[in-house]
């Protein structure tokens, strides 16, 4: 029986006076891959940002390996083992690929393991090794996405949250990326929480999923069940297959 790593319990989140999340709850077990999907603006990114500490929940609780995350600073939450690749693709453009990766390993224990982690990252994404001396801003969209994931991995997170892995990328690239993510997951056992527009690919990749609409969790289940559900197919997979 796998232990629970992340437990989000009935959080309400506001942007100023605007309520964005209503009693959102979710659970991620050790080594699980979970996907959040739903319409645009439903609150998926908000959920991820709240877990990472960039936003504060007004009520409810968020615990990670038993530790309460609610009042913690962002950098503390990262220290505890949660990494986020946010929706806005934010590499450090003025720094080289190598420097981006290095700064990813800023935290104490990650810094000590830096060289080993970087070697592994280069094996997973050889193109990053090729371009390691280049300024990050000169990379293509797909390469920047690889850099973002790798940079987050450098901090050795136990839970990696990725907001829109596939955004703006060509389908073939997305497929490769998901395949690589699976490799990463298999070799590290890292827990993964995805927010993803490409629902079909995400469900094929994940163990479980949550559907978020209008700031609330409206459904929860195994990825396989979602893939087989007619409702889900009509509502979400129809859109995805048109991409």
């Amino acid at each position, binding site marked *: 029986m796998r232990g629970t790593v992340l437990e989000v319990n009935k959080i309400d989140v506001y942007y100023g006076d605007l309520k964005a999340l209503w009693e959102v709850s979710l659970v991620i077990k050790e080594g699980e891959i979970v996907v959040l999907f739903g319409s645009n603006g439903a609150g998926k990114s908000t959920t991820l940002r709240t877990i*990472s500490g960039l936003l504060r929940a007004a009520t409810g609780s968020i615990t990670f390996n038993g530790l309460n995350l609610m009042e913690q600073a962002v*950098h503390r939450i990262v*220290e505890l083992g949660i990494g986020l690749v*946010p929706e806005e693709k*934010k590499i*450090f453009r*003025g*720094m080289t690929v190598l420097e981006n990766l290095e700064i990813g390993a*800023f935290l104490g224990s990650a810094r000590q393991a830096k060289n080993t982690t970087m070697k592994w990252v280069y094996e997973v994404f050889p193109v990053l090794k090729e371009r390691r001396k280049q300024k990050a801003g000169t990379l293509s969209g797909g390469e920047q996405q690889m850099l973002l994931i790798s940079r987050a991995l450098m901090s050795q997170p136990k839970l990696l949250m990725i907001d829109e892995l596939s955004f703006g990328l060509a389908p073939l690239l997305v497929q490769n990326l998901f395949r690589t993510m699976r490799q990463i997951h298999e070799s590290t056992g890292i827990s993964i929480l995805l927010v993803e527009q490409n629902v079909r690919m995400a469900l094929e990749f994940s163990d479980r999923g949550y559907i978020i609409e209008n700031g609330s969790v409206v459904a929860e289940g195994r990825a396989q069940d979602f893939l087989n559900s007619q409702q889900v197919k009509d509502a979400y997979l129809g859109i995805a297959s048109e991409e």
Partner: protein
Amino acid sequence: MIGVFYGLVAIGLALLFGVMRYMNIAHGSFIVIGGYISFWLFTLWRVDPFVSIPVVMLVMFLLGLIVYRVLFSQLGKFPEGPRLGTSMLITFGLILVMDNVVAFLWTSEPKTITTSYSGQVFEILSVRLPVIRLAVLGVTFIVIIALHLFLNRTYFGKSIRATAEDWEAASLLGINIGRTYLVASGVSIALAGTAGATIALMYSITPYSGLEWLLTAFVVLVLAGLGNIKEVFVAGLLLGLVEQLSVFFIGGHFRAVVGLVIFVLILILRPQGLFKQ
């Protein structure tokens, strides 16, 4: 060339703005305080002004930490838009306080540091170079190199660069933004103080001459492009060059005006500065 020195005057301001998006218009006042500390050490204990520079840097660094804790950190709550304006308001108040404290401590009389070698001149190939200016140039180069090593070779320095580019992404890698801002404030003020120490040697200082130097710093900043840090020294060099050329063609009276003219020109023709962000 004197231009590099203009870079030194501006670099503290550029660093603070680049990292925190904070416009510290009291920067000039901090420069002047640095000068007064150096002056004090020289007059009271006969400390050679160049020897006192590390002391000035340390004291100013600590002052920067305190100013951050007490004042600047309160602004972390503001998003970037209002932060700029509010920072200018707060630091404006700082000018009033600091300038008057300095006037109280040291009187409004202009002070300058004259050492035994102040008048000496170095002669190379029939070019006469004042020793003081050469030494200041040397100091500036040391600062440039030290800063470069700090920002590019140390982890903390790189975290400062990362924070300057994107503080949110930096925090998501475990970088403590508050601590980064704290150290950046200390370094910024320390750099201002260093510039001040050299100014006390080459020119004279009064409690209110801070604004004059703020202006120079500001022109260099705009020339380099707001947010740029490394390019500030090149921009300073350019400014110095243009000033020298103007003296050659128009005569010395208009030297101060040249800076302002450049300022206006840049804002009209290329407001983002000469160098890309």
